């Protein structure tokens, strides 16, 4: 069979089950676009390549699939970098195709030539420049395999124009052979036996779960472990939803803006069962003082995550779901004693922390952002897929929307990309057409990828955008208020577009609430609309996110109000 590179690419995409591609065309990918139009694959034309990558990211997170992007060379490729770095930090499976100038022009500073493989080397799991059409099929298959296996991540494939236009005799490709890549899925049982012993002996244990549990689909096993052992659970930002936020054993999120009780637990506990986490600095605060009394069982598929920041007592390399499954089985064979008595003192202590310092706010005459998120939670019964922007809005979303299922909280955790939420919501809505998808946004962040409103409209995607408008780059302003003598340098965003009119200009619905009593009706109206909707909430300008642990301080030393 004689096929062009572009045709071969389509064959492999079909083989890999790709149904949606987020992209933006240009000169060197015209051959690919020409073939793409002949397939059943849905192409979502975004308005900026960064939007394509975040949308593929949201699609991957909500749908537990590999996200796919296609962009042109040069500026098209460089525009993807933020999105790729974001997916890399959060371990999201993704394949990004970039066009490249023809092979004979590479290295000549040709029009729209850029060394995107060089640029993205440190922010991809792996990347490729395809030099011959003959290599294309194998590389693409390999890329999908690498992206989705082990600790997932983005893989970029740079395809020169002539590679996609050249015709070769195509033989459907053989199996992938990777000499040096074989992730460890099954844990070392000896290590798990050690973990069981620590769990049995612990008096004040906690479970700390993160994004790795979401990615491995291990939420059920994690919940089983907690219930079986009656160990309370906290999550990193990335882990929210793997354990029901309504469960009595739920501690809330841990970290810089974690709950009082979750942070206090880390200071007091004698065992942390850490699953699919990497002890990021936003979680640990000052590492030297983190969990001073705790032994640490650390389960992760990526050996580099273990003992990188916090030394593990029992390191366990393995897939979170598989490992938790084994751990549960081992625990079933043990007698754990009367857990109610055994845990009473510890759980009572936690209840005390909870009752003395709960997450709280007072709704007076100006809308409080926490109130908006809480109302949103009530009205959606905790069932919505929530994406966020970055800043205070993101933290209020994490604190006041009580996630009960994994894959429902989609946020840029590692890189913290303002402008992530709207395109991610678009991707999530495409992955889950029947779900309500809401972007909880800040007024600053939403303006970073607002152009994707047009994408949402073009494809009839009824995403809902809740803007918590404080007319500030609120999170930075909060730091300035607390640590820089209220000198608000470069954070006042007094001038913003009229978001209601802006929504209308895009052909979407725009709603605004200025008074607390309008919040519920605006939410009800907006959420029930079949349209793309922007709901703007004019909130208390100088509201802060609490608790807050100053950067670099011990995680148990929180500012509470």
């Amino acid at each position: 069979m004689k096929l062009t590179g572009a045709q071969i690419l389509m064959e492999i995409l079909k083989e890999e089950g790709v149904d949606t591609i987020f992209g933006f065309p240009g000169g060197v990918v015209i051959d690919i676009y020409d073939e793409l139009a002949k397939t059943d694959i849905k192409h979502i034309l975004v308005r900026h390549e960064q939007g394509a990558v975040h949308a593929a990211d949201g699609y991957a997170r909500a749908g537990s699939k590999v996200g796919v992007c296609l962009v042109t060379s040069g500026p098209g490729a460089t525009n993807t970098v933020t999105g790729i770095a974001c997916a890399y930090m959060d371990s999201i499976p993704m394949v990004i195709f970039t066009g490249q100038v023809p092979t004979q022009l590479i290295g000549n500073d040709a029009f729209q030539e850029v060394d995107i493989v060089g640029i993205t080397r440190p922010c991809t799991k792996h990347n490729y420049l395809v030099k011959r059409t003959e290599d294309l099929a194998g590389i693409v298959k390999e890329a999908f395999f690498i992206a989705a296996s082990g600790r997932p991540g983005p893989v970029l494939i740079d395809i020169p124009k002539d590679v996609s236009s050249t015709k070769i005799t195509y033989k459907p490709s053989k199996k992938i052979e990777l000499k040096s890549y074989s992730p460890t899925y099954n844990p070392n049982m000896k290590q798990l036996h050690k973990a069981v012993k620590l769990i049995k002996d612990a008096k004040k244990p906690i479970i700390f779960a993160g994004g790795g549990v979401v990615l491995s689909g291990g939420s059920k096993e994690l919940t089983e472990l907690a219930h079986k052992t009656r160990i309370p659970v906290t999550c990193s930002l990335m882990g929210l939803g793997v354990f029901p936020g309504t469960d009595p054993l739920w501690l809330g999120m841990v970290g810089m803006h974690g709950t009082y009780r979750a942070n206090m637990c880390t200071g007091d506990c004698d065992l942390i069962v850490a699953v699919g986490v990497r002890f990021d600095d936003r979680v640990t605060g000052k590492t030297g003082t983190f969990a001073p009394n705790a032994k640490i069982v650390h389960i992760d598929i990526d050996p580099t995550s273990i003992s990188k920041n916090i030394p593990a007592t029992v390191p366990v390399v393995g897939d979170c779901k598989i490992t938790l499954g084994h751990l549960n089985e081992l625990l079933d064979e043990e007698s754990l004693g009367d857990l109610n008595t055994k845990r009473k003192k510890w759980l009572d202590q936690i209840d005390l922390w909870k009752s003395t310092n709960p997450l709280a706010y007072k709704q007076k005459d100006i809308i409080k952002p926490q109130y908006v998120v809480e109302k949103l939670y009530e009205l959606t019964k905790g069932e919505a897929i929530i994406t966020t922007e970055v800043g205070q809005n993101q933290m209020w979303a994490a604190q006041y929307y009580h996630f009960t299922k994994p894959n429902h909280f989609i946020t840029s955790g590692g890189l913290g990309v303002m402008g992530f939420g709207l395109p991610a919501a678009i991707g999530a809505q495409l992955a889950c057409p029947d779900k309500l998808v809401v972007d909880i946004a800040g007024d600053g962040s939403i303006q970073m990828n607002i152009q994707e409103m047009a994408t949402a409209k073009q494809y009839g995607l009824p995403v809902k955008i809740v803007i918590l408008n404080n007319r500030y780059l609120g999170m930075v302003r909060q730091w300035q208020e607390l640590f820089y003598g209220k000198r608000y340098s470069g954070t006042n965003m007094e001038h913003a577009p009229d978001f209601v009119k802006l929504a209308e200009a895009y052909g979407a619905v725009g709603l605004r609430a200025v008074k607390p009593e309008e919040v519920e009706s605006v939410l009800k109206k907006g959420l029930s609309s079949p349209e793309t909707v922007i709901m703007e909430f004019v909130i208390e300008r100088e509201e802060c996110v609490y608790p807050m642990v100053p950067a670099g301080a011990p995680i148990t030393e929180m500012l509470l109000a």
Partner: protein
Amino acid sequence: MAEQKYILSILVDNQPGVLSRIVGLFGGRGYNIESLSVAATIDPLVARITLVTMANKPVVEQIIKQLHKLINVIKVYELTEASYVQREMALVKVQAKPEHRAEILRIVDIFRCKVVDVGQEHYTLEITGDEDKMTAVLNLLKPIGIKEIAKTGIIALFRESK
């Protein structure tokens, strides 16, 4: 924790861009490279990188794990704690004034170096050996006058069992 020298022997796919992934990893994560040497192995598809780094134990463990994580890295050996042979080679241009020539040749003889080029006023010596020998020879040559040096990094292999 105290830093010490670690010798890593890294087998990689012999492809363009692989070295830059490794160097990029060290640069990006703030690890240090004391020396580096690269060449294809007997299998042309595989290259061996011998890399010397100064680090403490937890950092070198992290370095090894990070290296393993790169798709093109096939194997990483940490030689420091095993029994291994190591060599470095240097080409040294020394000033060879008539009154020093005999001394230079004596050093060459004792340390089994070679004179590979002789000019009007300079000898170029080839020195091969482990680090200790290299330091010893260079210390002896310094007072005589070293004009230029070109040095390879360390290359090293495990010793096979006898």
